[in-house]
Each structure stands twice: as structure tokens, then as C-alpha cells.
């Protein structure tokens, strides 16, 4: 088991290296000149040339790459061409809002998705199964940007239940200057017991979180259903029945613990993808998350920012994969032995 995890870790590092190489290369092939961008549209040729030297853009490309890698390891992730701030600092500002959104959305998806998948499998080919399948396929078929707008239309436009966008009302932000602990208004206000900020942040979170939950919810439901279907055919399930165990106990304990593995993988991977993959949702809800930052960087060809986000996403992805391996080993003792 330990060697397996070490192997996975090394593989992860390899993927990470490859990824930096790839994004670095792509970013440098971008037709627009980063140095010209850096100094702005009114700069003289001389200023551009100086910026080029300053940014190290005059060196051979492999030197630039090595220098970039050395900087990375030392925590210097470059400076964003758009914000003119260190990329790592930008990330620190945008990450909490992203995590807040992802965690709440994923909790929603897991809490609904797993039971729904289980019920669906336990009643295969009956009405409730058809409904749950239609629902879960529907959930993965939704264009998120559209759902976001429809939710805004209904819950803000017509019902006036939730705010349109953002993560906190500007007035509240001014009235209650928060001491930043985690950087997330929701968690910080919860920790400090500031209920005005908390309820406001919470009501801002609901629509984006529901939108974000849709896709993973569909995936989790489908994955749980299909692996439960497999497990419910196993001998030990029949044995449990033959010994008078209740259907509820058999389904939710004996079968589910066997079936949950692939679902855990799906949860981890979609969480990893969500870190920067939810930029459409963040755009519509004007949510100050990492996806928003990444999309802006992409559209502005802000290559230090792009690479910073890319590396963060890759690290997160590798970490999630490792977490999956560990959770699987806890769930299934046979993995530990192998």
C-alpha cells in the first residue's frame, strides 16, 4: 500500500512537471507579446525592450523555463500581467470564495446523489428508478450558465428570495468590516458569530451552490446506482437476506460500503475539476472565485496567472487522487493487503 501511494505520488510529480512544461510552452507561443502587454499600450519600443529583459523574455526558452521552475519552488509564482500582483497573492485572494462554493455545492450533490442512486438501484426498472435516472441525466445535461440565469430570473427577478449575484451585499461589507481568518465570508462570520454577515453570505451562496451541484449530483447518482446494481447481485447480499437482515440495513450498510468506491472517485475528481472549472457559474453570479480569475487570465493571455492557476489545479488534482487512494484503502481492507 505504501509503495503504491509513493508510486502514485511520483507519477503525480511527473504529470505536474509535464504540465508546467506544456503550459509554459503554450503560453510562450501565444502570438501577443507579453512584454508589450506588461508596459501598456502607450509604451515606447525602448520601454518594451527593457520590460522584456526585466521579465527574462530575452533569454532562450529553456532558460526561461528553468528559471520559472526555480522560482516556483521558492514560492515566487510570477506576477500577473493584468493585476500586476504576485500570482500567489492573487490566488490567495480568490481561492477561499472558490472553496466555499465548491464545498457547499459538493455537499449538496453528495447528500442528495448517494441516497438517490441507492434508492434507484434498489428499485431497478420501477417508476422511482426511471424518475431518478431521468433526473440524474437531466442534471448532467444542463448548461450551467443557463441554469444560473434561470435561477436568477426566478428567485431574484420574480420571487425576490435571493440576491442576484456577488458574495456579500456591498452595504453589509462596509457596515461590518470583517477580520479575515480564512478569507471566506461564510466561515469567518460563522467563527466570529457575526450573524448578519453570515445570513447575508449564506443567501448569496445558495443559487451558485445549487447551480454548481447539478452536474456532480447527476454523476454521483448515476455512479452510485450502477455500482449498487452490481453489488446487490453479490452472494453476500443474498446471504444477509437469508439471515433475516432488514433490507434497509443490507442496502445502506452491507451493500453501500462495497459500492461506494467508484462514487468516491467521482466525487474527488469532480471536486478537483471544479476548482477552476466552474468559471461559467462564477461569471454569471459574479462570484470572486478562482475560475473567474482563471477565465479572465485566459482571455487576457495573462500567462503567469494562467500557469499559476494551472499548477494549483494540477496539485489539487493529484492531491485528490491520493486522497481517493487512501479512502479506498480504508473502505476496502483488501486493497491494503495487496
Amino acid at each position: 500500500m505504501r509503495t503504491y501511494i509513493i508510486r502514485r505520488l511520483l507519477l503525480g510529480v511527473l504529470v505536474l512537471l509535464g504540465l508546467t512544461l506544456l503550459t509554459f510552452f503554450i503560453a510562450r507561443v501565444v502570438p501577443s507579446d507579453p512584454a508589450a502587454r506588461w508596459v501598456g499600450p502607450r509604451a515606447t519600443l525602448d520601454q518594451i525592450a527593457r520590460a522584456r529583459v526585466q521579465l527574462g523574455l530575452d533569454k532562450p526558452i529553456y532558460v526561461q523555463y528553468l528559471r520559472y521552475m526555480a522560482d516556483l519552488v521558492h514560492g515566487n509564482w510570477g506576477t500577473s500581467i493584468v493585476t500586476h500582483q504576485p500570482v500567489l497573492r492573487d490566488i490567495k485572494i480568490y481561492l477561499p470564495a472558490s472553496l466555499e462554493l465548491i464545498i457547499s455545492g459538493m455537499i449538496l450533490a453528495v447528500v442528495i446523489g448517494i441516497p438517490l442512486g441507492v434508492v434507484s438501484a434498489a428499485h431497478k426498472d420501477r417508476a422511482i428508478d426511471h424518475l431518478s435516472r431521468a433526473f440524474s441525466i437531466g442534471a448532467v445535461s444542463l448548461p450551467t450558465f443557463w441554469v444560473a440565469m434561470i435561477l436568477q430570473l426566478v428567485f431574484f427577478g420574480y420571487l425576490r428570495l435571493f440576491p442576484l449575484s456577488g458574495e456579500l451585499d456591498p452595504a453589509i461589507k462596509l457596515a461590518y468590516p470583517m477580520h479575515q481568518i480564512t478569507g471566506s465570508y461564510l466561515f469567518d462570520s460563522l467563527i466570529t458569530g457575526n450573524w448578519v454577515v453570515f445570513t447575508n453570505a449564506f443567501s448569496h451562496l445558495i443559487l451558485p451552490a445549487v447551480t454548481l451541484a447539478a452536474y456532480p449530483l447527476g454523476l454521483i447518482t448515476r455512479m452510485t446506482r450502477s455500482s449498487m446494481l452490481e453489488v446487490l447481485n453479490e452472494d453476500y447480499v443474498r446471504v444477509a437476506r437469508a439471515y433475516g437482515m432488514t433490507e434497509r440495513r443490507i442496502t445502506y450498510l452491507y451493500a453501500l460500503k462495497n459500492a461506494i468506491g467508484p462514487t468516491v472517485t467521482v466525487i474527488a475528481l469532480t471536486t478537483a475539476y471544479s476548482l477552476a472549472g466552474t468559471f461559467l457559474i462564477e461569471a454569471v453570479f459574479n462570484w470572486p472565485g478562482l475560475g473567474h480569475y482563471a477565465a479572465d487570465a485566459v482571455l487576457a493571455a495573462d500567462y503567469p496567472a494562467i500557469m499559476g492557476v494551472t499548477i494549483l489545479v494540477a496539485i489539487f488534482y493529484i492531491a485528490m487522487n491520493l486522497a481517493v487512494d487512501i479512502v479506498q484503502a480504508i473502505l476496502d481492507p483488501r486493497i491494503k493487503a495487496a
Partner: protein
Amino acid sequence: MSAIDLAHEKRRSALPGLAYGFYLLRKNVLTMIGLLIVLVLILVAILAPLVAPYPKDASADVHIEQRLQAPSRSHLFGTDEMGRDMLSRVVFGARISLTVGLIAIGLALLVGVPLGLFAGYFGGFIDELIMRVTDIFLSFPPLLLATSIAAMLGPSLTNAMIAIALSWWPWYTRLIRGQAVSLRERGFVEAARAIGVPKPRIIFRHILPNAVAPIVVQASMDFGSIILESASLSFLGLGAQPPQPEWGLVVSIGRNFFMTSWWYVTFPGLAIFLAVLAFNFVGDGLRELLDPKTREG
């Protein structure tokens, strides 16, 4: 769906017999509904000039006196800020989405299939190299990857298709590699090798034809996701350009008006949703059909 595949690289079995396959599909209500919608969609796309009430409104026509009208008998889906009939634009949008989907998948296959064949057939270093590259591509949120590529190539529908293909090919490489690895050991391939058939010929004449069925199935299962991705790129302004009636683009422009004109984003968005849903319903039926574990006697 991509995450499912990643989590669960299922062995795909041979297709079941036709009669039995049809029996299973028919039992699957959702698949039948999906097939029906897909057929309607294809018909609408082909017959768009006949179906659309105002075919000219699909392009840059302007009737400023009819701008932003709510749905009525003459404009079932209402009109946009140029006074164009929304229904006609949605109908013509079907053409764009289906075409883009087909071409993008075709391009992804064009890249992914040969690489998968090489990786699986040759093994060793080539295999390692190709598969690690797919790992890198797959460790990135697919939409963000496509967005980055599209942003680099510049906004246009063609570039969006290329971007989608470039973010999607690794799935096919993985699938085909698995097929090629198992086919490589099969008798007819060994026999071909033994009598000295050249390698390219073995790969493309002996292995590829036997891997076609799973490719076609996987591609049709992916169609919904591809349509969704292309709509998303257009929504970001990286795909279709005005005045094209591409659904994602129309929703994007509608963002400026949707609080006062609900129909503007509702109908084109619904069109995206229904199209993706229909293809996913069909794909789900196919998946069930191919998975022996959920099959029953």
C-alpha cells in the same frame, strides 16, 4: 460523463445480438424518448428553412419596430433586441450545434484514434509517452482547457471546434489503446504479423476495424457533452460570432435583457438542454446495453 469513464474504465464487451439489443433498448423508456428527440432535432436541422416561420431572421435581419416582444401567436418564442423571431433563430441554431458536434468529434477521433492505436500496438516507450501526455490533458478541467485553447486560437466557430477536439482526444486515445492492447494478442493479428504484413497495414486494416464498434458507441455517448461544451465556448464569446444564431451565443447576448425579457435566454437555453438531454438519454441506453453486469436474462 468524462469523470465516470475515468473512475470506471469498464471493459466494453461485444455488442449483444440485435434482437436482444433492441429488446433492451425498447425496455428503456428514456432511451426511446431520447431517440425521438434526436430524430426531431435532426429533421428540424435539415428542414430549418421550411420549419422556421421567418427564415431570414436567422441572419442579420433587423426589424427594430418589433424588438423584444414577448411570445405571441406570430412569434411563439418572442423576439430579440433586433426584432428577430426567436423561434426561427432557435431552429437554425440546431443546424449549427449538430454540425459543430459532428465536426468536433470527428477531429477528436482523428487525433485520438491513431495515437491510441500506436500506444496500444507498439507499447513500451511510445505507449508511456502518449499515455503520460493524455494524463496531463486529463488532469485539467476539460472546459477550461478548451477555453484556453480557443482563447489562444482566437474567437471563431472553427477554432472552437478545434479547441474542443484538442481537449477531448485523450478519452479516445485511452479507449482505443485498451482495445489495441487486447487485439494485439489475438490470433488473427499474430497470424498477420507472422506472415510479414507491414505494421501500418496491421494497425489500420486489422486492428482498427475491430475497434470501430466501441469507438462509435463512445462517440455517440459523448455527443451531448460536446454540444454542451461548444455552447459554453460560444457563451464565452469564443465560438460562434454574431449574427449567427448559435444557442450559447444567443443566451450570452440575452444576458443583457433577460431580467426584463425572460424569453430571450429561456428558449435557446432550453434548446441546448433538450438536445444534450436527448443525446445523453440515448448514450445512457447504449452504456447499459454494453455493460454485461446491468444486463439480465
